[in-house]
């Protein structure tokens, strides 16, 4: 089962074996130690969101998530890994739910698909533009509260970490782009796993229902060894990943429970090349839902940024005129809902699904592999190539807000402290912003978009050569064409001036 492509030597760089940090991470309460500060931070944001300034630029609830969180998350994913999920505060009450052992059932089979994640990401991005979450501290605070409630509710009802694995839009985003991260969970010695009885990395040293059954059958039919379940042990992998088989960061929250649970100390967090898994054969399941999640997320990167440039308002007006929405007597809000909804559905769902299916179909026909591969195989093989270009789009958009508002958190924090009688940090200097030279930011945006495109082409080329051998060039063509279209859309989009409007008025 162990992939030959992963070197098994102990010479691999392993974060969990680093002198101090490794010990800290493997420590039983290691995750809790980073979750508690994050929980306090989340509570602070909710508090300021409900009680502080209604102006988004002066409230922690809007500045911290929409400016800093989104920028830092991209940096962390690219240079380290899924650090947000590791420190995720939403899972704290959830862990409580689990410890209380309320959960028994598994998540319904029909919902065990990334289709749910696609829907929740779509909903979050749509709500972000439609309700102008970026302009409202109170609404943003409600979103944070919603995360806590949903995460707890799912954990109370279901056995595995269904919220993380299937529902959470933040987690789904992080899963997709952590596939470029230079760190991945794996095992030190595969032979240890072969003889391992408990498979604690996935089962946990307690578990309501073990995923890999280990009760061996004795001579008289009664089990020889029985796994005992107590709520006191170390949980196994919440998203049901099996460390010795892992080839991808998809679904890994970097909680490190596997490393803590493994009685053989066999789990490590190993270094690997940035984006290495994207061109590794069969690293991902050949599933439509996984492929469409990755492809749609790249397109949503474009659509989400499109919602913040002037042409979107012209397009919405044109949609309104074409459909005669004004004549129907709809309010401005009603028209915006329909027009924006159409843009999102077409750009974020129909376009990615339709265009990628078309590219897969074309590649299959051109390489005459219609007999060998079905459409699903032809499509899913190339899905990983959509990660870099998508990451480029998100980095360009989130990078814009992050760079332009880099230090804005400083006066906002000072203002918050002053409001609560803490004068220690002085008067806020509101002029403190970030990078004000828009050509610098524009250059950064162009570079990341083009770099993402280049990496996507390079990945697709490797996949094409492997999948289509001498027909590789032909098989790559449809995909290269699609990436080039996306690139042009991205460059056009990010060269537009930003225009962040709230309520839209229609003629």
């Amino acid at each position, binding site marked *: 089962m162990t992939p030959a492509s992963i070197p098994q030597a102990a010479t691999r760089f392993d974060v969990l074996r680093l002198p101090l940090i490794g010990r800290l991470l493997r420590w039983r309460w290691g995750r809790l130690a980073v979750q508690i500060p994050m929980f306090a931070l989340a509570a602070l944001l909710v508090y300021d969101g409900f009680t502080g300034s209604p*102006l988004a630029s002066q409230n922690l609830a809007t500045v911290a998530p*929409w400016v800093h969180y989104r920028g830092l998350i991209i940096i962390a994913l690219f240079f380290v890994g899924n650090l947000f999920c590791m420190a995720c505060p939403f899972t704290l009450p959830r862990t409580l739910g689990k410890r209380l052992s309320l959960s028994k059932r598994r998540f319904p089979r029909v919902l065990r698909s990334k289709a749910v994640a696609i829907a929740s990401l779509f909903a979050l991005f749509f709500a972000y533009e439609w309700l102008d979450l970026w302009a409202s501290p109170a609404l943003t605070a409600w979103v944070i509260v919603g995360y806590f409630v949903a995460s707890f509710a799912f954990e109370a009802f279901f056995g595995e970490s269904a919220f993380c694995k299937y529902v959470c839009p933040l987690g789904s985003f992080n899963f997709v782009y952590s596939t470029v991260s230079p760190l991945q969970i794996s095992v030190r010695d595969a032979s240890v796993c072969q003889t391992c009885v408990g498979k604690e990395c996935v089962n946990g040293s307690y578990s309501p229902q073990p995923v890999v059954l280990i009760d061996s059958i004795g001579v008289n039919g009664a089990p020889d060894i029985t796994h005992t379940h107590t709520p006191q042990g170390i949980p196994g992998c919440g998203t049901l990943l099996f460390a010795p088989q892992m080839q991808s960061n998809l679904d890994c929250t970097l909680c490190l429970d596997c490393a803590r649970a493994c009685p053989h100390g066999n789990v490590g967090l190993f270094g690997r090349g940035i984006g290495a898994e994207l061109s590794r054969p069969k690293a991902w399941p050949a599933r439509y839902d996984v492929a469409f999640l990755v492809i749609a997320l790249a397109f949503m990167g474009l659509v989400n940024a499109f919602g913040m440039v*002037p042409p979107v308002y012209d397009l919405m007006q044109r949609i309104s005129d074409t459909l005669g929405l004004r004549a129907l007597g709809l309010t401005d809000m009603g028209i915006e809902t329909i027009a924006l909804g159409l843009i999102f559905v077409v750009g974020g769902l129909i376009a990615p699904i339709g265009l990628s299916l078309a590219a897969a179909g074309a590649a299959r026909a051109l390489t005459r592999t219609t007999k060998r591969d079905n459409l699903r195989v032809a499509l899913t093989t190339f899905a990983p190539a959509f990660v870099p270009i998508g990451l480029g789009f998100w980095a360009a958009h989130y990078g814009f807000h992050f760079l*332009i508002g880099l230090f804005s958190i400083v006066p906002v924090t000072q203002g918050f402290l002053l409001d609560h009688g803490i004068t220690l940090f002085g008067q806020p200097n*509101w002029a403190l912003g970030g990078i004000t030279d828009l050509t610098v930011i524009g250059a950064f945006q162009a570079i990341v978009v083009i770099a993402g495109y280049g990496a996507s082409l390079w990945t697709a080329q490797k996949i094409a050569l492997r999948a289509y051998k001498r027909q590789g060039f032909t098989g790559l063509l449809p995909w290269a064409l699609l990436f*080039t279209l996306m690139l*042009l859309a991205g460059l056009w989009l990010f*060269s537009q001036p930003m*225009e962040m*409007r709230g309520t839209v008025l229609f003629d």
Partner: protein
Amino acid sequence: MRPILSLVPALLLAALLAGCRQSAGGTPIPTQPAPDATIEATAEVTLNAESLTVTIALTDEVLLVGVAPVTVTVTDADGEPVTGATVALRADMTHAGMAPVLASAEETGDGVYVAQVDWNMGGDWVLTITATTPDGRTGSATLETRVES
């Protein structure tokens, strides 16, 4: 195998060229000269028994990215112009993370104060005007406005 390897740089180059042309067309946030967009603000100030009310009216329908004057009128409860006041303006974008544009208004006579505000990005803005008289009376007004790029 060779043609496939040359495909990548070729496509990149083509895309780059197309991209440059595109971005030359729509240079980000130009400082276009704004038309005679003038925001007039009338401030009535009250302290203790006197009340300062601030009303602001936009004279132009469309405000463009760029520097535009904002006129503020400060009057007291009797409607008399207030002279010698300090008038500070703060323009915030409704989007988090944008540094506010700060400006102070010069008195041009008879309770009329004019400030040059640099509307540096398109979008929704909230303008907050605070007037303070030497004897300590203050009044403020806010105005929501839209800037087009």
